[in-house]
């Protein structure tokens, strides 16, 4: 039997060199100039609106540069899945990309991951005991992905939840950072994300000063992580204020 193995044709392997071409680090020691001309610690200007989807209980639309996301929230409502009685409500998240969201047409690879990450980010902020036996459904649709989609999805989802009147401990703001050689850039675009050595995403509740989710990928040194976390938390609190003012605006528009 051992002899036969050598006769089987070798399975095709793509040549390893083609993958490494863009990984040769371009910036050891050099400064990274951001394609959209921002400073390294400057976030993209944001456009936030609630009430984007009429039919949903609550919804929000967020635009951070080229990343455009619509989140709609349904509920609390009955769900066929939740047959057992439970004291706590259930949260169900779903993230999907439109086919025209990425530069190359087709399903983006991370959308399955993103649903469970959105769930983990939001479940710490929602008061689940306020809607026992029912389910809140959060559906996020990425219309265009221009870098750091998950933080935008999370912030937009928390706006939509507040718009739907679901009880929250606090708004959830999320910001991500990229490490490119020795540069730390906040709120990366997709080009920067593809070149990054490491990525850090923090989701926190600004007024409570509590972090609901932190995701670290790639290589990081300890001082860099400290610096990155501090920058992210500052940016999150600023984003929290912007979200709050967006909600206040929606409230003061003529509505009896």
């Amino acid at each position, binding site marked *: 039997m051992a002899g036969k193995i050598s006769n089987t044709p070798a399975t095709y392997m793509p040549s390893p060199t083609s993958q490494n071409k863009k990984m040769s680090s371009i910036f050891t020691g050099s400064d990274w100039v951001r394609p959209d001309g921002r400073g390294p610690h400057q976030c993209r200007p944001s456009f936030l*609106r*609630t*009430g*984007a989807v*009429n039919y949903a*209980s609550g919804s929000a*639309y967020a635009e951070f540069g080229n990343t455009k996301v619509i989140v709609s929230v349904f*509920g*609390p*409502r*009955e769900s066929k899945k939740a047959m057992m*009685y439970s004291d706590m409500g259930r949260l169900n998240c779903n993230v999907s990309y439109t086919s025209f969201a990425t530069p190359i047409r087709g399903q983006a690879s991370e959308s399955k991951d993103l649903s469970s990450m959105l769930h983990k980010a939001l479940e710490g902020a929602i*008061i689940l005991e306020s*809607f*026992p*036996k*029912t389910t809140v459904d959060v559906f996020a649709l990425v219309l265009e992905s221009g870098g750091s989609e998950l933080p935008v999805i999370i912030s937009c989802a928390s706006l939509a939840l*507040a*718009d739907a*009147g679901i*009880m*929250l*401990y*606090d*708004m959830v703001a999320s910001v991500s950072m990229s490490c490119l050689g020795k540069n730390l850039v906040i709120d990366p675009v997709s080009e920067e994300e593809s070149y990054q050595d490491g990525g850090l995403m923090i989701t926190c*509740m600004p*007024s*409570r000063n509590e972090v609901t989710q932190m995701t670290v990928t790639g290589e990081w040194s300890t001082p860099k992580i400290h610096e990155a976390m501090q920058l992210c938390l500052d940016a999150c609190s600023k984003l929290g204020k912007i979200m*709050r003012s967006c*909600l*206040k605006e929606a*409230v*003061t528009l*003529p*509505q*009896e």
Partner: protein
Amino acid sequence: MRGLQLSLNKNQKLRVERALEQLESLSLKSNSDASVTVADNISVDCEDAILKGHGTTELDGRVVATLCGVVERVNKLVYVRALRARYKPEIGDIIVGRVIEVAPKRWRLEINFSQDAVLMLSSMNLPDGIQRRRTAIDELNMRSIFEENDVICAEVRGFQHDGCLHLQARSQKYGKLEIGQLLTIPPYLVKKRKQHFHHLEQYGIDLILGCNGYVWVGEHVEVKDPMLVDQSNKSEQQNADSENSMSANEVETCTPLETRQNICRTANAIRVLSTLGFMITVEVITEIVNLSTSLNLDIHEMLGPEFYVLVAEKEAERRSSLRKKR
């Protein structure tokens, strides 16, 4: 962004904005500092004696809001009332709902609430009107009373421990609603009043304002009070029964065109009012319908931008005249 997106031209936009501004200035309580968003501080005088109500939670000794809305204070109770609140059922509310499932000994209704409501077979009058125990045959014949997708009017009887609603439809005025339109409006536009059943005589239609935001506009149905039906009427009923079996076939031709047009007009009036976010009451609805007939507008024009603007202006007028009367 919410609501019917109408393309208003410049002039119409100006008129609408002016009317809405006028309404805002007329509103009695303009305390914008009472509106809070999530995790805003709620100012309390002495924190020990405050009852923290719905929509609030405690954080580090402060009271913070968990909802976006307006802070209401009643004596020692502080709570946050959400602006676009979900329907909050109370015992005795009149509800309009749609049957989504026929289950053993009950019907499940969808009523624009977080859970489906339940109408037990025992809370429903049997077709023959006799008060008796429901047998297995009654259970098998449930479908002849209500089927899936039927629209039903009922009253909230109570809550179960898990928050599920129980309904009852034991009176003649409750039951299946047949010829008409069911409209969905935000539930906070319907205030709890003494009367939710309205009969508009001049149009010959019935109007049921369900507290859950489902409004029924339909052909008028004579409600026979069973207490008044006595022996002398029994023979009448027997004749009526034989007639009913014939008229069931001709029921499509029985509703006159004018009634149907009135139903559509009233429904459109309610749609425009709910898009503008005004409270839905019978007086306002009849005024709007009169407005549309006096202007000789076609029924479909009522959903157009011009009528939208006219309704906003009319409401501003009405409220300012009410204010002056006071």
